[in-house]
Every structure is written in C-alpha cells, then in structure tokens.
C-alpha cells in the first residue's frame, strides 16, 4: 500500500449541505505536520497511544470524527470524515508510526469509496448499484449500537462492583462424614482381580494361603504388641481343639520364618517365650 499517495488524492469536497464548518482543514500536500486536523488536538507522537488506547478500532475513530463534528451518520458527512481519517493515517505513515492493520484496512476501504464516488455514475444502473458509502454507514450504525449498549451495560449494578453477596455461616453441628459401605463380595472380587492380574503378570501362581493362619499371625502379633512377651502355651486354647492348635502353630512357624517373632528359651526345657524381635 502506498498511503501518502492515497492521501494526496485531491478530492473536491462533496457539497456539504448540512456542514456547519468550512472545508477540510489540513492540506496534507503542503505542510502535513504543522496543520493538524482541528478536531483533534493531539501531538503527533501521541497519536499512536490515542489510537490504541482511546479508540476501540477504526470504526470507533470514525464515529469519533463524525460526533466531533456534531453530525449524524449521514451519507453526506462520510466524504468529509473519510478525508480526515485518511489524513490521520497518512500522518501516522509519515511519522513511521506502526498502525494496527485494521486502521490501514479501513483507510484502503475509505480510499476506495472516495475513488468510486469520483467516477461518473451511468444513469441506467444508478438504482441497482449500491452506494459504496451505504455499507460503511450500516457498519458504523451497527457498531455504535453496541458501543452504546456496552456503556449502558456498564451502568447496570454489578456483582462485586456495586453489590456484594452475603456470607452467613449455617452453623450446623458437625456431622461425621458419611462413609461408603463396601460389601464383602466387592472385597473378594477386588482381591480376585488383584490375584488374577498378579498371576498374569508374574507367570506363576500366587497361591492362596490359609486365611485362618494369616489371621492367627495378625492376632499373635497384636497380642505381642500389647503384652510384650507371651508364653508359648498361652497362644493355644483348649476350646479351639486340634485344628485350632494346628493353625496357631503354623502361624507361629510362618512368623518365625518371616522374622516377625522370636522364640526364646532361657534354659533347656523351660517354657518357650514368644516376643517381638528386639528393635
């Protein structure tokens, strides 16, 4: 794009009937830097900041230019505003200030509108061909609606800015957490799956052990924790019968094998003592 040339196009002002001001002020061709458009008193080096922070884009800037002149968004004012807009863009270009692409795009659009307006219109097609300005006006009106809506929405009372939620402690008695219940079947199934997985993983059978033996092992260990040392005989109970004694004995053997208990005999033939290994 060659903007200076676009801006340099000299366009005769389009009969400004409702115009309450005189013709465009800035003559870019001669002294563009001294004669700023008189609607905006902005030092040139502040223009970029203004464009980026004050205006929400080219439509916003165009709207500003229109409003500044106290004009309606009317077809007649578009040419005027277009000129001023292009002057700004040219100014920015000359100052080598980087502009957002949208501003340049709008400049191109405006330049196109201008050039099309210059072309003589064939009488025949006048009705059919849309005025190139109409679309821009439509967009400007559309944008202005939402710009205004945004401003009005900002006026609405808003949570955490104007109003605030209330927090009141329910002060409920603390309830013990409700724990999920598990069935014994679920437990068995979980174990079966673990074993299944383990056996598949390890390529050998993880054999089942006598539960009763494992349980007795736990019970013996628990007893030792409470009482320290216990007598070997005290681990056996008459009421359990032979089977019970076997279980206890197997549990003891297993515990010894795993180094979980120590069996002591202070002297030959004296009673056996069972105790936890000395830590």
């Amino acid at each position, binding site marked *: 794009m060659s903007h200076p040339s676009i801006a340099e196009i000299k366009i005769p002002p389009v009969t400004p009937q409702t115009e309450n001001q005189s013709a465009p002020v800035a003559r870019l061709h001669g002294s563009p830097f001294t004669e700023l458009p008189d609607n905006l008193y902005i030092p040139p080096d502040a223009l970029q900041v203004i464009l980026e922070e004050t205006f929400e*884009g*080219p439509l916003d800037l165009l709207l500003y230019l229109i409003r500044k002149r106290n004009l*309606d968004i009317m077809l007649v004012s578009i040419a005027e505003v277009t000129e001023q807009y292009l002057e700004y863009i040219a100014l920015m270009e000359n100052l080598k200030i980087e502009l957002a692409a949208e501003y340049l795009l709008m400049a191109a659009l405006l330049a196109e509108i201008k050039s099309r307006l210059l072309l003589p219109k064939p009488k025949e097609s006048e009705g059919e061909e849309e005025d190139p300005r109409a679309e821009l006006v439509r967009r400007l009106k559309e944008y202005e609606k939402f*710009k*205004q809506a945004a401003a009005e*929405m900002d006026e609405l009372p808003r*949570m955490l800015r104007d*109003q605030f*939620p*209330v927090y009141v402690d329910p002060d409920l008695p603390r309830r013990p957490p409700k724990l999920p219940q598990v069935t014994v079947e679920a437990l068995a199934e979980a174990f079966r799956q673990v074993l299944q997985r383990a056996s598949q993983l390890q390529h050998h059978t993880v054999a089942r052990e006598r539960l009763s033996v494992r349980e007795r092992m736990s019970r013996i260990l628990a007893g030792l924790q409470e009482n320290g040392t216990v007598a070997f005989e005290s681990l056996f109970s008459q009421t359990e019968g032979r089977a019970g004694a076997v279980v206890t004995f197997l549990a003891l053997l297993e515990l010894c094998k795993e180094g979980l208990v120590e069996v002591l005999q202070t002297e030959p033939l004296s009673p056996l003592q069972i105790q936890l290994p000395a830590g």
Partner: protein
Amino acid sequence: MNLKDIVEALLFASPEPLTLPQLLSLVEDEGVDRPTLEKVLEELAEDYQTRPLELARVASGYRFQVRKHLAPWVSRLFPEKVGRYSRALLETIAIIAYRQPVTRGDIEAIRGVVVSSNIIRTLQEREWIRVVGHKEVPGRPALYATTKRFLDDFNLQTLEQLPPIQLEQDEQADPEFAPPSQTTH
C-alpha cells in the same frame, strides 16, 4: 416454627440463589404452598427495604445482597477484585449478550477489530459466556452465548431486561435490535 424465619435463614445460608421451586421443596414438610411462599418473600423484601441488605431476584433465584450504596466500604474487603472492565471487553460481552449465539468472527465484524483471546478467556473464566455450539462453516468456529451467571452478576432475571439498544438519531427502536427473547440456557 415461623415460616418467614425459615425462608430468611435458608436464603442467607445458601451459597447460591434459591429458586421458588427449590425453596418450596425445602419447606415442603411445613405444608407450604406456592402463594404462601411468594407472600413471605414479598414480606421479606419489604422488611429489608430500610436495611443495608436487599432481597434481590435474579436469573437463578432469590438472594440477599449488600446494597449498592455500601460498595465503597464493602469493596475494601476484596481489593484484588476490581470490577473494572475495559471497553473492549464490555463491547464484546454486549455483542454476545444481544446477538447470541455469535462467533468470534461475528464480533470482529461488528467491532472492526480483532477480538483478543484474553477477552474471551476472561469472559469464560468469569462464567459470563460459554460455547453453545459450533457454526457449520469452514473451521467450525465456536458459538458463544451468555450464561445464567452473567444475568445473576448483572442483576437480571432474563435477557429481556437488558437495556434496550437505542440510538439518538433512530426515531424508533429497530425491532431487529431488541434483545433476544429467550432466557439463557
């Protein structure tokens, strides 16, 4: 037990606004019917007329809230949450609110500038907008719409309560620009 006390306590203790049906189900043991409950709510709103709190009705139901004129003091409790938003964000949420469902492209067409991802993210984090679908065009862009939370935060019950869009030079409102009539989903 005093029904008004129960309703008042429920509204204060609830972390979220309560709808009429929710309130009804919470007091159903008392054999309360809807008109009775509505009357109690009216009375409550009346009782709070002169208080620093007010009973408000928003999209998700009834809630107590601190009145606006106390914001200067109350906002000190939340120094990090400054309720200021950029014009770009406000314009974006306005377009989504009035024109939903819209794509980012739609918003950009109206605003004439690119919509930053930051703005969309902020609006989503705020739970003011959400993706309600995808437009069946190349790239299947997301379609954004406002949420119930958006209405709640702007003290609205429905989108129809949004300020009507009017322009100085428009003699009469363009019917096209009435806010969409459906309440947010």
